[in-house]
């Protein structure tokens, strides 16, 4: 899901997969807005100029 538009069947499916059945039943509008918010943040996060960029923080062993 990379576009700003979030389809309701997708939202419902993802919400159930996340265990949000109760919220989906009681607060469907809130669930839809939360999904929209996630999609919006994802699209604002920008693209990488190199796919192999190291994530932060790099793996470090514990002593």
């Amino acid at each position, binding site marked *: 899901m990379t576009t700003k538009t979030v389809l309701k069947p997708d939202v419902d499916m993802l919400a159930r997969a996340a265990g949000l059945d109760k*919220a989906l039943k009681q607060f469907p509008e809130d669930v839809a807005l*939360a999904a929209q918010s*996630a999609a919006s943040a994802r699209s604002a996060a920008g693209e990488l100029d190199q796919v192999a960029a190291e994530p932060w923080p790099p793996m470090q062993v514990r002593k």
Partner: protein
Amino acid sequence: MNDLHWLTAAELAGAYAARKVSPVELVQSLLERIDALEPQLNAFIKLDRDAVLAQAKEAEREIRAGGQRGPLHGVPVGIKDIIDVAGQATTCHSKIYLQNIARADAEVVSRLRAAGAIPFGKLSLHEFAIGGPSFDLPFPPARNPWNRDHHPGGSSSGSGTALAAGFLPLALGTDTGGSIRNPAGNCGVVGLKPTYGLVSRRGVFPLAFTLDHIGPMARTVRDTALALDVLAGHDAADPGSAAISHGNFGADLERGVRGLRVGFVRHFHEQDVPAHPEVTAALEEAARQFTREGALVRDLQLPPLQELAGVSRIFMLAESWTVHAPWLRDRPGDYAETSRRKLMGGAFLGAGDYVHAQQRRLQLSDAVNAALRDVDVLLCANSLDPACRLDDDAELARTYPRQARSPFNLTGHPALALMCGLSTGGLPISLQIVGRMHDEVTVLRAGAAYERATDWHTRRPPLEKTGKAKRKPAAVS
């Protein structure tokens, strides 16, 4: 002494030492003011009058016996109610945590106690530090002393309100996406988000582990530095704590800014997310003021504000979802509507989104670090609009994301908010000064120079004109 409630922590230390005022006199004066004004402002969730008076008496006894421990001895400090104080509930302003009694002090509270400060009540906030001003919670939202119909900012709302109202000289806030700097800005006081890891998070309920900061709020830059001297330091029990030593954060407060290189991040508020014209004008005037003080001000380019904020939001959503998922599944109706909407967002992000954000975080942090190699501090906007009405949901939703704070939660750089103007509606406007990692000394130096050159920090909200309330606030016992 008159107007004890407006004395700064630094002034109090001198007054205590000279026996011009005592901690008990101060606390009694503050309690009287709180009794009169708190019902209009809702800054506190809980304030135990007997406990704070007992601590004031103890401080008074120690100071009079020649045992003044330092500048915060006998100074009241308000505690945001997401920070543990042993034996008291840490409600997080939520129905979910009403009975959450803290077994031990948070590290920051332990440090304040060791310095002789008086933990002075639990201050209201946005639910779990992420909601908004909500009327469907067990406690009412704090109100802005400059105009009680307007938003005091959040999530450390009670901290900003209490300082601007003259209830306290110091308060603790937490800042995950700007929650110290937003109320500092909206209430016309000072707030510092320190470098990530400088102040321990132990005993503070998490919102987003990699963005969470704890820091001081005050009415002057000097008081902010004094509080940071006490709060900062390594804590082995906080895995994010920085293992570095530090000295006196106020060391350069008198140094001025002649020759200081200031990078003005104008594109944040001019191109990326255009600010309200009065905010733009105040920032331009602040830049000119720095120039008049001898600073070398020039425009400076960072990555786009939307991108910095967008990546920060991925962390906020993903990490806060991790914390709240069990409650959101079982008792979603116990959250305020605003909090529920914000906290469920992480359910719709994937592992790839989080890793992608981690990759972007490294790049964006490198870009900010690179910019700070050419200048000593950054000057940029705080909120991009004056505070809107507390009950205007549409305007809250529009203006809340219009800010330049969250970039520095993402990168971890220290950022100071302080007042730089008043809107035509009589509401504070604020700027940010951002510095290199662990260079709070320079950030505070620049803030102190600006403060000396202007009179914004001497302005007071027109509270007295609103008249005194007749009833005693329910939260004060």
